[in-house]
Structures are given as structure tokens and as C-alpha cells.
């Protein structure tokens, strides 16, 4: 029942069953009403016919028995020839072409039956319920269980003629006259209709269920296909979920899924590159340690040789330490999890201090430093994080720019945004694809020497990106025209200059 198709099938089948049932009941009720109306109409017509026949008969019988004779009119179950019998004959004759089981009863004002037809086989007929108007159609159940349709009329309505039905000759003048007709035919027709409706309903339901099953199967096929493709979707090798034609309802879902899978694939690739890079970075110093110690222990080194080996061991350990420290600060989010320490400071002073910090390294490579800070702008930001970002951008530029070139720093603040851009001449062989990888952990265009100390393990720009995010901004890198027909490397930071977006809980970017 967990299947969408099965659920829909059950729900729709039940709904169809209910609809068919309701339709059947409606048809049945309408048919019943129609049959009742038809029977009632016949009763009405029969009553009029009976009145006419009775009056005619009464007129013909007048000479033989003077109307109003007490002997003739007393009693209600008299011998043949009594008024009841006469009425019976008259009414039976009047109804003979209409219905079987016709009978009548007449009731006095107090509800006592003053006349009753013999066709009722001695069963009492209850007086009709009080009713307004000329007539009342209602159902009667005789004591033998037979059902009769009854038409009750006030004698006044049928006694418009001089001697209606001749009943006015009774000793106790009847107030109500009830004409009864068997409803068995109608009951039979209704039973047939019920059977027909049941059969037709069941057949319809079975056929509709089959069709529904087929329609659901075909209609939901795209969903099944989609589900299969989604299940087979694999960030490593799977084909896109959205490949091929999909219904309009599913296309956005597939598109979104593919987008997520693409992101997941990229994240997995980044994670793998990161892990691979970490493993690679760790292998070399570990190899140094192992080889150095094995060689030192395996040989017959003198004190100077052993000291030289220890110096190398110390260097390898420092290298390992710098990698581990960088990884720890990256993974623990130690710096990023702290509350931002917002300070307001002059942008010009901040940039000047950053430039001063890299000046010795720049001088060693013959690199000139040029600054361009807009006006007397002030910035409110976390100076520690901002310094980390700017120092990283600057030190990388100074380290990798071609010797004896210029590294320029431009900074501005306005409209709530701080922008710092560092530009240097493009190192030989650096391609646009390389620039896109600047912020990957441990990435380097050329191998770093394993003697590199802290800050040279290839995580600087990676961390800068994390700090920039914590400052509510981002860092970028691209190749741009240098204005002299060549290309320059530009790295930059865009962040909030008001501290408004400095995130307390900013996480390090995914590796």
C-alpha cells in the first residue's frame, strides 16, 4: 500500500464505488417516485372513474331501493347486495382494467370504518392520518403484510355529485374515503430495477477498476520512470535524472535534483581533492622523517652526521606541524566560531599596515608596492579576520609575482561595502584555469619546497575565502588586462564595511 499507484487505485475505486452507489440510489429513488406518481395518478383517475360509475349505478338502482332506506344502508359487512357489496362491485369494476387488489374503506369522522370492501379479506385498514387538502397518497400495510398504495379523500371532495358513491346513504355518514390498490407490481418493478442497478453498477465498477488500473499504470509511468532514474542517480557515474522527456510536473523536480547532484558531485570532488592534497602534503614530510631516521640509524654516523640528521628531522617536524596547525584551524573553525570583534578604523591606515608587513618580502624580490586608497574612508569590521584575508592576498602576490615588478593594492569603502583589490603581473605559465584553482586547499602551480614553513602549505587563500565569508563577503581571483597589452592577476575581497554581515557562526567552506 506504499505504492502511490495502489493508493490512488484504492482511493479512486472507492470513490467510484460511492459514486456508482449514489447514482444507483438516485436512479432507484427517482424511478420509485415516478412509479409512485404513476400509481397515484392511476388511483386518482380510478377514483374519478369509480365516482362516475358509482353514480351511474346508484342512479340505475334508485327505483329498486329507495335511497336512504335504513335497511339497505346499515352495516358495513352486509350480505351481497349491501351497499358495501355494491360499492365493491362498482369499484372493482371501475378498477378492473387498472389494478388488481383494489379495495376501499370508508371512515367516519371518529375514525371508525363505516364501509370496507370484501377484497380486503376482512383485514382492518387503519384510518388515514389527518391531512389537509383534498387528498392524500400514502402507503398502507395490511395485517397480512401486503402493501397497498392508498388514496384518501375527504368525502366532501368526492361528494360533489348528488349521491357520490352512494355512501351518503350510510347510517353513519363517512368522512373519509380510502381507495387502495396493490403496489406489488410497482414493488416488483422496483425489485427488478434494483437488481438491474446492482448488476450494472457492479459491472461498471469492475470495468472501471480495470480501466483505472490501466490508466494509473500509464499515467504514472513517468513517475515510475522518474523514480527509477532518481534511484539510479549516482553523483559518481549516474546519468542525470532529467535526461530525456519528462512530464511538465516532474521536469522542475528533475532539474533541481540534477542541480543538487551536480553540486554534490562537485563537493565530493572537492573533498577528494582536499583529502588527496592533505595526504600528498603529509606524505613528503613523513617520508623525509622516515628516510632520515632510517638512514641515520642504519649507518655509522658520527656526531656531526647525527646532528645533521636531527636538524633535518626538526625541519620535517616543523613542516608537519605547520600543516597540522593549518588543518586544525581550518577544521575546528577556531577563528571562525568566535564572536566578531568589530572595530572602526581608517582604511588608509589599515592598508598601509598590511603593505608594511609584506614590504621586506617584496624588497627581497625587488617588487615595488603601490597603494591606492580612496579618500578618508573608515570601515567597521573584524580587524583580525580582515587582516588575515588581506595579508594572504598580499603575501601571495608578493611571493608569486615576477621578480622586479609592481604589486598594487587598491581599497575603497562606500555604500556599506568594502573592496580591496591586489594586482600583480602574471607569472609565466599561469593560465586562467590555474587562477580558478587559487582557493583550493594545497593547490600550487609549481611544487612548494618541502622546507616551506608555516603559511606556505597552500592553505592561505583557502582560509582567506573562509574568513571573507565570515566577514559577509567573498574573495575572487581572475586574469585581467594589465593596460599594457599583457595580463595581470587580480585577487580581491568584497565585504561589508559596516560589520553588519559579520557572521558569528560562519563555517569554513567545504573542502
Amino acid at each position, binding site marked *: 500500500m506504499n505504492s502511490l499507484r495502489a493508493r490512488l487505485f484504492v482511493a479512486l475505486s472507492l470513490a467510484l464505488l460511492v459514486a456508482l452507489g449514489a447514482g444507483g440510489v438516485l436512479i432507484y429513488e427517482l424511478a420509485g417516485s415516478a412509479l409512485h406518481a404513476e400509481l397515484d395518478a392511476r388511483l386518482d383517475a380510478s377514483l374519478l372513474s369509480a365516482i362516475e360509475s358509482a353514480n351511474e349505478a346508484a342512479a340505475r338502482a334508485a327505483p329498486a331501493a329507495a335511497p336512504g332506506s335504513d335497511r339497505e344502508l346499515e352495516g358495513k359487512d352486509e350480505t351481497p347486495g349491501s351497499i358495501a357489496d355494491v360499492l365493491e362491485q362498482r369499484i372493482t369494476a371501475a378498477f378492473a382494467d387498472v389494478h388488481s387488489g383494489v379495495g376501499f374503506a370508508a371512515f367516519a369522522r371518529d375514525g371508525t370504518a363505516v364501509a370496507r370492501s370484501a377484497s380486503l379479506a376482512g383485514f382492518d385498514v387503519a384510518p388515514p392520518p389527518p391531512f389537509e387538502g383534498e387528498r392524500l397518497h400514502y402507503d398502507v400495510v395490511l395485517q397480512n403484510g401486503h402493501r397497498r398504495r392508498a388514496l384518501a379523500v375527504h368525502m366532501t371532495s368526492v361528494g360533489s355529485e348528488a349521491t357520490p358513491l352512494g355512501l351518503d346513504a350510510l347510517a353513519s355518514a363517512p368522512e373519509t374515503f380510502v381507495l387502495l390498490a396493490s403496489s406489488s407490481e410497482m414493488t416488483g418493478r422496483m425489485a427488478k430495477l434494483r437488481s438491474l442497478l446492482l448488476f450494472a453498477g457492479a459491472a461498471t465498477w469492475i470495468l472501471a477498476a480495470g480501466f483505472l488500473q490501466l490508466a494509473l499504470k500509464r499515467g504514472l509511468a513517468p513517475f515510475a520512470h522518474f523514480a527509477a532514474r532518481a534511484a539510479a542517480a549516482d553523483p559518481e557515474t549516474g546519468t542525470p535524472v532529467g535526461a530525456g522527456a519528462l512530464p511538465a510536473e516532474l521536469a522542475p523536480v528533475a532539474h533541481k535534483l540534477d542541480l543538487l547532484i551536480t553540486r554534490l558531485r562537485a563537493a565530493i570532488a572537492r573533498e577528494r581533492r582536499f583529502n*588527496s592534497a592533505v*595526504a*600528498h*602534503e603529509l*606524505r*613528503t614530510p*613523513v*617520508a*623525509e*622523517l*622516515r*628516510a*632520515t631516521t*632510517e*638512514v641515520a640509524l*642504519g*649507518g655509522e654516523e658520527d656526531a656531526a*652526521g647525527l646532528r*645533521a*640528521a636531527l636538524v*633535518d628531522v626538526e*625541519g*620535517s617536524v616543523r613542516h608537519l606541524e605547520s600543516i597540522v596547525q593549518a588543518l586544525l584551524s581550518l577544521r575546528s573553525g577556531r577563528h571562525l566560531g568566535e564572536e566578531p570583534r568589530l572595530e572602526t578604523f581608517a582604511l588608509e591606515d589599515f592598508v598601509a599596515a598590511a603593505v608594511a608587513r609584506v614590504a621586506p618580502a617584496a624588497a627581497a624580490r625587488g617588487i615595488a608596492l603601490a597603494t591606492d586608497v580612496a579618500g578618508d574612508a573608515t570601515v567597521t569590521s573584524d580587524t583580525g579576520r580582515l587582516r588575515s584575508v588581506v595579508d594572504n592576498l598580499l603575501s601571495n602576490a608578493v611571493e608569486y609575482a615576477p621578480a622586479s615588478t609592481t604589486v598594487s593594492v587598491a581599497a575603497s569603502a562606500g555604500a556599506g561595502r568594502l573592496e580591496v583589490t591586489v594586482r600583480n603581473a602574471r607569472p609565466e605559465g599561469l593560465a586562467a584555469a590555474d587562477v580558478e584553482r587559487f582557493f583550493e586547499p594545497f593547490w600550487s602551480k*609549481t*611544487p612548494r*619546497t*618541502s*622546507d616551506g614553513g608555516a603559511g606556505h602549505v597552500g592553505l592561505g587563500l583557502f582560509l582567506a575565502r573562509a574568513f571573507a565569508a565570515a566577514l559577509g563577503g567573498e574573495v575572487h581571483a581572475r586574469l585581467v588586462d594589465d593596460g599594457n597589452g599583457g595580463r595581470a592577476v587580480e585577487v580581491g575581497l568584497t565585504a561589508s564595511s559596516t560589520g553588519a554581515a559579520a557572521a558569528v557562526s560562519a563555517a569554513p567552506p567545504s573542502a
Partner: protein
Amino acid sequence: MRVLVVEDSDRLQRALVAGLKQRGFAVDAAGDGQVGLERALAGTYDAIVLDLWLPKRDGIDVLQRLRESRQDVPVLILTARDGVSDRVAGLDAGADDYLVKPFAFNELAARVRALCRRKYGRRSRTVAVGDLTVDLSARTARREGALVDLTAREFALLELLALNEGAVVSRRDIEARLYDERDEPTSNVIDAAVCRLRRKIDRNGLKPLVHTRRGEGYWLGVEGVR
């Protein structure tokens, strides 16, 4: 045996050079791919230990250039790259062996020795010359079952002669294989070394195995069998 180590990590390079020298190899070193290629093309090496991620010229590039120059010197790639694709790329580029950092130095030395043996068409770890048995892996020599006490340099000389059993090895070849660029052997150092080796191998009463071919060089073998 003379080995070239091309490794950009100074510390690892120093350890490799020292460790291989301990095991009797003559070792030269290069710190980048360009210098490594130049030395590999110019020198006479029995094996090259080559890092992949090198400044100036990538290790794979060095290897390809080497093979293009018809240099069939055995090359062992020693790298931190452990991916299958890296191994495949390295071996397809012409490497004879591939070892991932970190490594056990003994394993590295054994692999280098195996490469050197293969270069001389030897697969067995021992070479038997008459009643002299030279164990190239254990780096021992036995004459009539008795262990011959040899220094690392003396064993390296014996190893070279044994691998070229019956063939004359010139002084120049001996110098090229046994001495690295830092050594500056004097003119008679080869003769002196052979003389010392002969004294230890051809002890009194034993059939001489170390022979001199005047003006050509030296050879190891049983006279008359060659």
C-alpha cells in the same frame, strides 16, 4: 652501481643520497626536473630515482624526454601521488617501478638493486663465479663458503665485475659506476681498489678470479672458462 636521485625536497634528497651511499651506491642528486634531465642525459647511471612533482620540469616530462633520447636506464618513480591514474601514467611514460612516499628505505634500496640487476640481465640475487658466490641482496661474498670481508666500495666493485662476469670492465666504467660527482678519484684509485679486492678474493692458494686486461680494464671469472 651509480644512481641519480631527482628530488626537490632537500631533506629527503639528503636522506636518499646518504642511505643509498650506505648501501654501496654511488649517488648523484638533482633538485629540479631540468637539472635532473640534463644529468640523466649526460651521466651514466644504473638507475634513476625520480620524483614526479618537480620544479621547472615535471617528472613525467623528464621521463618522456629520457625515453625519447633512447636512454633505457631503469627509472624508479618515488612520489607522494598514490592514485592509480598516477601510477599508470608513470609506468606508461616509461618508468620501471613506482614507489609511494612514505617508504621503507630498505624496500627502496632493494627495488633499486633489482633495477640494477635487471639492467645487467640478472634476475637472481646471487652471482656465482667459480667458487665465489656474490649475494647482491645481502651484499656479501663467499669464497669456498667462507665470508669475504669487504667494504661497501669494495663490494660495489665486486658487484660491478660480477654483473659483467667474463667481460672486461674499463677503468672509466668503474669510475663512472662507483664514484659520484662529489668523488674525485685520482688516477690510480681504481687500480688500488682492484688490488685490494684481489687480495681479499684471491687469497693465497685459491684460483685467481680477478683479472687484469692490460690497457683495457678488469674482469672477473675463471681463466680458461671465459
